[in-house]
């Protein structure tokens, strides 16, 4: 219910441009400085502390006098916090909700930052000198091998539709996907998929007949698949699933061959940053060779154009103002109506 509430607040914010309420944080952790503290770097992020911990430790090894405050919140809360200036003082904002990040940058909430000469980021992985992507993550389908019991593994949306249609009893009540009304990330995946794939609405219709379970995070879907509550989950962030389902386990990770969206995790320095120099330094560190190595070690795929030429089904969600379109009030309203009609049967 909290998520729905937040979504309503987001809609209000998108309409009015401001929101008066303070934001809800999920985690708030301070990594103290190794030596006498000379400064504090504050990071507002959607990424779990567990994933980012090693990166922060490595950063602090280089800058022992800097304490790091790491706050985790949902992408909508982050959007609200930045636009309402409810959370001043954050020096870096990291989020996987590309559309909201894009809107923040477009509306002038991001500060310009020049990357150092040694750091080369492809053009598609940054917008102006404000928004920088540091990880590219495929959006995958999760399946329970045990539940499939000998059926052929689906490789495309067409396969998936046929699988669900041919054996509805096996999947009824056991398919999961994002509740796009409540999850910004889910909304981004659904709108981009609807835009780029002809099969999206047919798949939605078929899933709608199977009493789907709706989630607000990939982690919850992964947990339910592991517990056996789900046999199929769509639009799961692949980098979260991979460590949970090593080869040989029950969970099967499928990158659909007709189209697999690739999410760019982006960072920017907000205009209200207290130490924009530290924020810029952290972004440089993330995109530098050491950051690249650590991102890879943390399980997030770092930025690299080779992935797209090697796997043509991978398509990055483009970091451009087109992302603003689905944030339009009317567009969002229309999409949610259609989506609800397809997925949610009362």
């Amino acid at each position, binding site marked *: 219910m909290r998520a729905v509430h937040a979504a309503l607040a987001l809609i209000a914010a998108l309409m009015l*441009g401001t929101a008066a309420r303070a934001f809800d944080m999920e985690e708030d952790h301070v990594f103290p400085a190794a030596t006498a503290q000379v400064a504090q770097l504050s990071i507002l992020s959607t990424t779990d502390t567990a994933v980012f911990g090693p990166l922060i430790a490595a950063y602090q090894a280089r800058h022992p006098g800097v304490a790091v405050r790491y706050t985790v919140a949902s992408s909508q809360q982050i959007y609200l916090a930045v636009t309402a200036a409810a959370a001043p003082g954050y020096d870096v904002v990291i989020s996987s909700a590309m559309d909201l990040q894009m809107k923040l*940058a*477009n*509306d*002038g909430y991001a500060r310009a930052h020049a990357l150092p000469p040694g750091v080369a980021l492809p053009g598609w992985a940054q*917008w*102006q000198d404000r928004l920088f992507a540091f990880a590219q993550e495929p959006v995958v389908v999760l399946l329970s091998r045990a539940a499939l019991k000998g059926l052929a593994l689906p490789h495309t949306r067409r396969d998936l539709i046929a699988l669900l249609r041919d054996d509805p009893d096996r999947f009824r009540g056991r398919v999961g996907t994002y509740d796009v009304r409540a999850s910004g990330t889910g909304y981004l995946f659904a709108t981009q998929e609807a*835009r780029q794939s002809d099969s999206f609405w047919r798949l939605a219709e078929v899933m709608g007949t199977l009493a789907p379970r709706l989630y607000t995070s990939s982690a919850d879907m992964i947990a339910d698949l592991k517990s056996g509550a789900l046999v199929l989950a769509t639009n799961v962030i692949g980098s979260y699933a991979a460590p949970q389902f090593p080869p040989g386990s029950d969970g099967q990770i499928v990158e659909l061959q007709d189209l697999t969206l690739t999410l760019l995790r982006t960072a920017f320095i907000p205009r209200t940053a207290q130490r924009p120099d530290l924020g810029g330094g952290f972004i440089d560190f993330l995109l530098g060779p050491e950051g690249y190595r650590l991102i890879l070690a943390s399980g997030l795929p770092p930025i690299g154009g080779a992935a797209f030429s090697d796997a043509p089904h991978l398509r990055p969600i*483009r970091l*451009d*103002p*087109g992302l*603003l*379109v*689905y944030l*339009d*009030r*009317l*567009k969002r309203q*229309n999409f949610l109506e259609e989506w609800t009609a397809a997925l949610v049967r009362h």
Partner: protein
Amino acid sequence: MRSAALSLRQRLMLQLLVIAAVLAVLLYLTVRTVAGRAAEATQDGILGAATIAIAEQLRGSEAGVSVDIPYSAFSILGSISEDRIFYRIDVAGQTLTGYDDLPLPPKPPQGQAPVYYTSDYKQAEVRISAVSRPVLVANRVEPVLVMVGQTRLGQAAIAAQVAKVAAGLGIGFFAIALVLSLVSARSVLRPIDLLAAAVGRRGPRDLRSVEHPTPKELRPLVVSLNGFIARLRAALSRTETFIAEAAHHIRTPLATVRTQTEIALRQSEDEATRRTLRAVIRAVEESSRSAGQLLDHATVIYRAERLADEALDLAGVVRGVTEALRPTAELKDIALRLDAPGPVPVRGDRMLLESAVRNLLDNAVKYSPDDSEIGIAVRAEGARATLRVQDRGRGLGGKAKADLAERFHRGGNVADVVGSGLGLTIVEEVATAHGGSFDLSDREGGGTCALFTLPLR
């Protein structure tokens, strides 16, 4: 009068360069303006297309106006430049969706075409396209205004790039103009340089009119110059004719005076009277000699311009003059020893050469003490014909030959000898006119050695 001190080349260069600089700046400004307008027109075109694409998605119903913004409308704008995008859709003055504080057009758009305007929004300069469409809502026609704005970073980047190219063009144009100006100034001024060189090459006595080919613009100058030369030549010629006439008119009566005085001397018996008469004769002799030298000099100057060019034997000339001078020398008991073993062929003007040799020998006789000897040697040495005259006179007295050969200049040690100071001048002028040389030096054991040379034939 600083400008008068500038050379023609400097003036020409300066003016050409000022013109080139003005043109280069004009070129720069023109390219910038045109390219800036083109970039703006391009941005306007894309913005207008996006606005119309959105306007075409407007739908009216009983419930109101709805719009389905096409993804490509913004995506295409975003793919052309990384500019920020803003939009606003108003129905009858109420914001339906988008940025409700995006500035409205200065006046509402009419017809189908979008209007474009520039405004400040969210700390940036924004170019906005606005289009109006009537939409039927519940049997009522509502005006719907669609606005799409974009920051101008892309355009600014293009403008900066164009400015760089335009500046390069301007500088390149100026550099080419600089080189061409140099070439052109040189080529235009070349006839003047050539004329100046042609006039400068002339010898000091060359008074021919200037016949150098010159461009039309320089003709008046050359004509004036030639007129001036002609007048100078006429004046010079008149002066020389006058001197020659005067010398002639003086010499003839002097000869008469001398004859009469000699007769008077022979008839007189009073010693005082005879002394006086002898002094008169000496004075008349010197006067006559001076007049003769003046005449010679005038002749030399006159003839030097149109030198007779005949084949001569220098030895023969010297011999003739020596024989003519021998009686005068014998009056002072001076022996003239001529050493001319063979003919020495030269080309030249007999009259002038005779005059030069006569003056040379005359000088030697004049400044030699009584009862001495004068050596005269004529030789062909290498490519030169040489005439050496050696006496036991009083030498140069420390004076340089250049001074002694100057017109009317005499040595410092000859106050007791009558002379005009023209003799050596004549010798020098004849030598120069024939391409020869003349030099004086002190002789070992006292006296002077005069060396007169001519090119051998």
